[in-house]
């Protein structure tokens, strides 16, 4: 039993880090530019499609991931310079709508280029099976995701907390005017951060492709989860995004694993079997609502 | 020292800290009904923080505030206004996209307690002649009658400061908290504002935060000095002028 819980906790950690890959870029863009970018999910989709295409053409997953990150970052720069820049000064509603429009456009463009069918993107053979850790088998590819997620978390921590660029970024997140007054080229900084966020996004898309379906609309379903994560964590805070994703990952996974069994102990099997999955599927939203009720600015508000 | 007087506002040992930094540290202050009480102090002494705490914009971390016999703890901002505690803002805070008249009417309306009060959904506001009439009267008081139909955002700085005062006044306060009403004004505008405050002082108790020492000493019946989050002295202008500690801590480098 303990081992089962342990394994489920590992699943939760893995799902959380998976979300973190996407949430990190989102929270950066959000925190620094005060910009709600729904098209983040589209960048994730583009990343996954590029990775699938290049992996199939070149036969190398790593090449696929690399090209996807680069390609998506370039696309992001173009997008930022041409369009998003005009939106920074606008209110959230305008940003939501403009980037919602980008989702529609991106989905159709992908459909035109790649068709409506789902694309194939598989893990390299070496990572396609499970490995034994302790008393149980665990998919090696999921371990890789845990590794990459932890690596990115560490990298971001060093980058944001220890480097000069990170200092600017933090300054930009807490007080944009002041940063500008210090003579930092905020425009360039924003473009760079946006491209970086997009590359992270593409990394997430490419890394998750082998576990999830690479298809049109894949961005929207995970985007909402990513938003839940950064809102729980506090917008603009990398630490918040990490804590938020782990919290969401654990609560969602453990809820799905435990809730039906727990309810069965309390109610009749019929009630439990209909109530359990229903409750489990709304658990993270309940979590978010509860956290926002007690902490209306999330767990780690970036702008104190 | 203020026993036996008719206290309108009694601030007892209020503290407020942000993280580890104390903006207010056991600050005490009392305002007597009918007076103009000035609060002075160097930059960063905690004057605006005190105004925020009094008006309910910020919760305090300790101490008590009693206003007109009511303990203000946990009362939201709007209830304090209803009790008769109104404020103006240091940085002009008006409805720039409304007309001047609408600004004041909005403030007058907050007091209306007739049928449905502000939860009246149907009757066009334009027929609320009582409110509109009162708003015009208030505008006349602050000499903005000619501007009634201009957008508030188009007024000059001095006019906006006057409007700011009119908004606070429109709630019919017992105590008016004026946070640096003369901030950013030229000498002429300041002079007009001093005249306005003198005029208002006949109707309402005023707690005035101000940097302009000439104005303060002209207007105030009593003065409190806030330094480092603590009130170090309270008394008549003459007493404050003569207070050695005040001179050392604050006035020394400005007046002497």
């Amino acid at each position, binding site marked *: 039993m303990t081992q089962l819980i342990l394994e489920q906790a590992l699943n939760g950690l893995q799902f959380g880090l998976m979300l973190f890959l996407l949430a990190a870029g989102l929270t950066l863009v959000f925190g620094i530019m005060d910009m709600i970018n729904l098209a983040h999910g589209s960048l994730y989709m583009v990343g996954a499609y590029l990775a699938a295409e290049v992996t199939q053409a070149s036969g190398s997953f790593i090449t696929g991931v690399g090209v996807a990150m680069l390609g998506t970052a370039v696309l992001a720069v173009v997008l930022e310079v041409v369009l998003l820049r005009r939106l920074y000064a606008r209110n959230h509603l305008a940003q939501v709508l403009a980037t919602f429009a980008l989702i529609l456009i991106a989905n159709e463009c992908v459909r035109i280029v790649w068709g409506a069918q789902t694309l194939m993107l598989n893990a390299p053979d070496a990572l396609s099976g499970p490995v034994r850790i302790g008393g149980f088998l665990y998919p090696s590819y999921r371990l890789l995701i845990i590794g990459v997620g932890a690596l990115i978390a560490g990298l971001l921590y060093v980058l944001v907390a220890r480097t000069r660029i990170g200092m600017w970024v933090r300054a930009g997140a807490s007080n944009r005017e002041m940063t500008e007054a210090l003579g930092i080229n905020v425009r360039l900084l924003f473009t760079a951060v946006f491209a970086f966020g997009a590359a992270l996004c593409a990394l997430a898309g490419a890394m998750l492709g082998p576990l999830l379906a690479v298809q049109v609309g894949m961005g929207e379903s995970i985007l909402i989860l990513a938003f839940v994560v950064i809102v729980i964590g506090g917008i603009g805070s990398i630490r918040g995004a990490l804590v938020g994703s782990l919290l969401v990952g654990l609560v969602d996974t453990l809820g799905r694993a435990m809730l039906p069994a727990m309810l069965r102990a309390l109610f009749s099997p019929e009630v439990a079997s209909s109530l359990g999955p229903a409750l489990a599927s709304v658990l993270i939203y309940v979590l978010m609502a509860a956290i926002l009720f007690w902490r209306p600015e999330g767990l780690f508000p970036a702008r104190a | 020292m203020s026993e036996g007087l008719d206290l309108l506002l009694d601030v007892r040992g209020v503290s407020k800290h942000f993280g580890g930094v104390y903006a207010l540290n056991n600050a005490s202050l009392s305002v007597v009904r009918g007076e103009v009480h000035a609060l002075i102090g160097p930059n960063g002494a905690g004057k605006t923080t005190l105004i925020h705490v009094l008006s309910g914009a910020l919760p305090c971390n300790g101490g008590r505030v009693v206003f007109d016999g009511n303990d203000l703890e946990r009362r939201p901002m709007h209830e304090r206004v209803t009790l008769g505690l109104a404020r103006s803002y240091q940085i002009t805070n008006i409805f720039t996209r409304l007309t001047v008249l609408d600004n004041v009417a909005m403030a007058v309306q907050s007091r209306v307690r007739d049928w449905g009060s502000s939860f009246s959904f149907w009757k066009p506001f334009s027929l609320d002649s009582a409110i509109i009439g009162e708003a015009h009267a208030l505008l006349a008081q602050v000499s903005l009658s000619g501007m009634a139909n201009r957008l508030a955002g188009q007024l000059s700085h001095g006019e906006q400061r006057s409007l700011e005062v009119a908004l606070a006044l*429109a709630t019919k306060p017992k105590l008016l908290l004026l946070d640096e009403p003369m901030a950013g004004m030229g000498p002429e505008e300041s002079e007009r504002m001093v005249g306005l405050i003198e005029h208002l002082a006949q109707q309402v108790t005023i707690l005035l935060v101000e940097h302009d020492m000439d104005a303060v000493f002209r207007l105030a019946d009593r003065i409190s000095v806030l330094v480092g989050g603590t009130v170090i002295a309270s008394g008549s202008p003459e007493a404050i002028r003569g207070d050695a500690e005040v001179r050392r801590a604050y006035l020394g480098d400005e007046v002497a």
Partner: protein
Amino acid sequence: MGLYATTTRRRIAAVFVLLGLIALPWGMRLIGQEFYVSFASRVLIMALAATSLNLVIGFGGMVSFGHAAFFGAGAYCVAVLAESGVTSAWLAWPAATGVAAVLAVLVGAISLRTRGVYFIMITLAFAQMVFYLVVSLKTWGGDDGLPLLQRSAFGSLDLKDDSTFYFVVLAILAFVLFMLDRIAHSRFGRVIQSIRENEVRMEALGYPVFSFKLVCFSLGGALAGLAGALMANQAGLASPNLLHWMQSGILMVMIVIGGVGSVFGGVVGAVLLLVCEEAFVEITPHWQIGLGLLLLAVVLWAPLGIAGLFGWGRNRE
């Protein structure tokens, strides 16, 4: 020109549009295109839903991303009542409005503690909860939705007749718009619009801002419930799709296109969006690109919406 303006000229224009809409069923019958009467009912219902959201976002300044919950609640209420034998519109429609209002009070009471993006997300969270709960409920048809086998009974009027139904919808919409116009110029309307402009100052003037926002939010929810009740009647189905977050998004799109905070913004947006959709669909299967570009253009070049372009917006600075 102030903040809350609807000029007499605009009201006269509205009367003419109304007359045109009243004539529409006869016109369509004349050219043998009765189908468009039913299409028009749908457009008007969406216009009502969008208008209800405009009250919340445009007038109250609360960017709610969960409005579909109230829209869907109204639809399900009518369908559930119909299943248990209550088919009278006089009972079912007010009930739908009431249920949506109660739901909105609950959601609003919690959500309005937050601001900005947090508010957007917490309203979305509540809508998602409602969506998943309804989809998993077999008694309410799950993802099949709950069919409404016949339209509600509305006195002696036969709502099965498309034209009759259209007139009822039109009458309700016209009344709601008239009501919204009245509200916009009432004391309450002025208060919520001023809260949108400067919330802190309103609190400092002694207004219980939270209560005003909650009332406005719930009123919007109630009207959305009414729209939902009509939608269930029009489609013959309470579909979980009405509760989906995309529905909230579409309603938002409508008011942004039409004009945020203008009385007719929701109507203009709904008409424009649905008619464009209808037209684009015939041109290309990739019509969503067209929709996306239209939306981008509006956001970038017509921030006050189409209504704003023609000076029907809330202000002209």
